[in-house]
């Protein structure tokens, strides 16, 4: 091959690189390894993690241990879905483009909004993306963000808003529900979460109405599974519904890759970030799908694009679409109702545990907060010894709640698991208090 090129060595191919810049040593990465050795090494690392297969986990806080049906893996592992690039050549990408179109339809149905894109990165950055659309839409200087929005989403939005010179004002929670401050024409968007981070179902409609009262956009982060049962953002008058898609057929993967969804009204369609698949016809009149409304996007509009997003999360969104088809129109309701029942049972069961108090008596779907009469960290350690991941400690994000714990219940958790949690919590709180009582004053 060198001969055909007309050089005498590989070295010659790099001669345009100034010698002063050449690396004069091998990278400090060691030798290559055989497949078997690499597998063993990375399996050993996996073995150092305590996954939801290794303990009874009640962790949620935005990502949930749902059962991912086998057909999701078998389909997404097909090389025709796994290995292509973004479908720039629609004639040979109809499979992916149609799958996107079907995904958009599912998100549209779940959110009750007419427009969905083909995915954004994940939940919190989706909130940032929604904020950017608000900024582009009305250019106002303030976001009002509920404290019920996922802390990661609030932080992500703040990071981006700072660059835009937009101020972020936090609306407090009162007894678990968002309480908006007086709004004014300076407010670009009101951003809430449904159910909120503490698991409580918000009154999305009144929050949206208050936003619209000052012509601000109403933006809601949503957990897509509960939407199968809850009043939809669309019904509530929300302008943009975004969210974390992991709970739809994506594994936990220590936080990613999953997907974010982005749904909105017809009014905002030309400001949507990222890919959108649209239906059209080919020269023979045959139905087909293409990436559409591309004049929004970076590769066409460059500095005037409505977002910089390029690669997003197509394969994860596909998993989501397969998953909701697997659940189906009835199944998704059955699943969420099942979680509703399990969660209700768990809330009652824990409420009965001495030293455990349920934080607010409001409707929740699959997650709720409790206060403990003992240091959460101590209790968690004790529960881990019993093989239980008791939940997400709220102290860091919500010091105002004191020693509080967020408990998530998916269909993977049985009554027995919940009873074990109750016993473990009870024992842990009791012994923690015994210890401190015993401790010298």
């Amino acid at each position: 091959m060198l001969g055909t090129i007309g050089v005498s060595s590989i070295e010659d191919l790099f001669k345009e690189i100034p010698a002063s810049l050449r690396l004069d040593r091998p990278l400090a990465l060691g030798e290559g390894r055989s497949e078997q050795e690499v597998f063993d090494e990375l399996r050993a690392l996996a073995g150092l993690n305590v996954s939801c297969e290794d303990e009874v986990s009640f962790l949620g806080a935005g990502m949930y241990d749902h059962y991912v049906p086998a057909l999701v893996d078998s389909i997404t592992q097909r090389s025709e879905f796994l290995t292509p690039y973004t479908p720039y050549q629609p004639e040979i990408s109809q499979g992916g483009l149609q799958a996107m179109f079907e995904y958009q339809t599912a998100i549209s149905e779940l959110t009750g909004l007419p427009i969905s894109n083909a995915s954004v990165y994940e939940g919190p950055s989706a909130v940032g993306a929604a904020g950017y659309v608000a900024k582009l839409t009305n250019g106002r200087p303030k976001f009002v963000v509920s404290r019920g929005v996922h802390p990661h989403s609030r932080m992500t939005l703040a990071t981006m808003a700072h660059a835009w010179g937009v101020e972020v004002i936090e609306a407090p929670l009162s007894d678990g529900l968002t309480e908006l401050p007086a709004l004014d024409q300076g407010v670009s968007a009101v951003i809430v979460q449904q159910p909120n981070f503490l698991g409580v179902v918000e009154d999305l409609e009144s929050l949206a109405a208050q936003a619209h009262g000052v012509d601000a956009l109403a933006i809601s982060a949503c957990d897509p599974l509960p939407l199968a049962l809850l009043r939809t953002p669309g019904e509530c008058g929300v302008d943009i519904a975004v969210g974390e898609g992991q709970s739809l057929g994506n594994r936990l993967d220590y936080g990613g890759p999953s997907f974010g969804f982005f749904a909105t009204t017809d009014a905002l369609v030309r400001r949507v970030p990222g890919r959108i698949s649209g239906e059209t016809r080919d020269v023979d009149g045959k139905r087909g799908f293409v990436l559409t409304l591309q004049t929004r996007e970076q590769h066409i509009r460059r500095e005037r694009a409505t977002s910089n997003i390029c690669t997003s999360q197509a394969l994860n969104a596909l998993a989501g679409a397969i998953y909701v088809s697997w659940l189906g129109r009835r199944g998704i309701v059955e699943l969420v109702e099942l979680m509703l029942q399990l969660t209700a049972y768990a809330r009652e069961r824990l409420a009965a545990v001495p030293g455990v108090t349920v934080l607010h008596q409001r409707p929740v779907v699959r997650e709720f907060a409790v206060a403990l009469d003992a240091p959460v960290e101590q209790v968690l350690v004790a529960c881990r010894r019993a093989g239980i991941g008791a939940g997400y400690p709220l102290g860091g994000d919500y010091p105002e709640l004191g020693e509080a714990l967020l408990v998530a219940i998916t269909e993977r958790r049985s009554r027995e698991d919940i009873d074990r949690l109750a016993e473990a919590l009870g024992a842990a709180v009791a012994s923690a208090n015994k210890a401190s009582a015993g401790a010298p004053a």
Partner: protein
Amino acid sequence: MTDDQLTIYERSKPGRRAFVAPVLDVPERDLDELLPEAMRRSAPARLPEISEPEIVRHYNRLSKRNFDLDTGFYPLGSCTMKHNPKLHERIAALPGHARLHPAQHPSRAQGALELMWRLQDALGEIAGLPHVSLQPSAGSHGELAGVLLTRAYHEDRGEHRTKVLTPDTSHGTNPATVTMGGYEVVKVGTDERGNVDLGDLRAKADQDVACLMLTNPSTLGLFETGIEEVQRIVHGVGATLYYDGANLNAIMGICRPGDMGFDIVHFNLHKSFTQPHGGGGPGAGPVAVSDRLEPYLPVPQVVRRVPEGNGAEPHYDLDFERPKSIGRLRGFQGNYGVFVRSYAYIRSLGAPGLRDVSENAVLNANYLVARLREEGVLEYLPVAYDRLCMHEFVLSGGPMKRDLGVRTLDLAKRLLDFGVHPPTVYFPLIVDEALLVEPTETETKETLDEFAEIVSTILKEAANDPEVARQAPYSTPVRRLDEAAAARRPVVRQQLD
């Protein structure tokens, strides 16, 4: 048999299902009591009603309407469509990785944190920049991180800068990111050799400039030979020098952005480091930075803590105590599943293997140019800048359009009939009728030879009848699609009733 084009909604039939609910083993409560009707949606989401066998067939049929890397040549310039080793999928699926909850306590996620820490370390070594954040979710997200880091850096020094420079060859995400990062884009020209126009750069580099975003090799597939001077100019005005890592595949183990003076590098793990593209993601866009930008990296950072003396084991942790950090760019710790694959790749190849990757990527690209020349293709599709290229090269379809009446788009569509994925078209913008070709290191000589012959066949065919290419493709599941109509009256979801 069944029309392959039916959507899953069109296949739906009332009453069908795949899902069976687990038995409810707790006392059942009244729904209204748990969730008052006023809080419930008025009608169920109209999701498909369909059995598992039909779901499987639906997606199987769809899959057969996709071209993929595991089936054929995919020289999509700037996208580094290299083989994705199957081992990586097996490893990523291990429950210890795949079912690890992101909020798991760090003491119970030591394997994941160690893997991330080792990956940070390896990426830092490859980039020649010591500090790495794995958080960004893709390349453009990494770019945003870079721009925000630059802002934090200047603000911390009390400087207020308003402009970011990008070459006119830059990828669309660069200017888009600049705007999203709250800066104004200033375009820098390209000289006749395809390098950054140093004169233009000097003219535009002033105290208002926060950053120059560059990729080297450039999107023209050329090594920026003036990089040292570029670096002097940019740093001379106190701006940061940003490296878009999409083209890193050309130089791994050969030279390093950090050694060239770059302050910030983003990686596309879904390009150089084999995360499968998934038809448009997932990816990951970690950033590596120099010491002076380290304080501003996102939270949390994965750190290795070595306890004082007493020979206690070092352990891995998430560090949130970063007062100067720009904050978060997303939830949790990033696209961990992607990290697993990329780390497996780095471990498999080691230092010699990574260098081989870049050497072969560059060898393949230059060999393909040479073969195209042999085939006489360059007559109609000249190389935009006739130099040794790096891992990719740009052809101009200008002469082909002028002399044969066949545009780059037509050539691309005709390639589809030969079972080849076309190169990137109409990018970079500064090249007339551009065709950006990146073969990657995992392709064989036979494949490159065949591609050269196919292009030459298409040109010959066009010479005696341009209509063949103009009407192409013919053998694809659908033929040319009306994108204008799609955009005029957007139909972006299934209509249901």
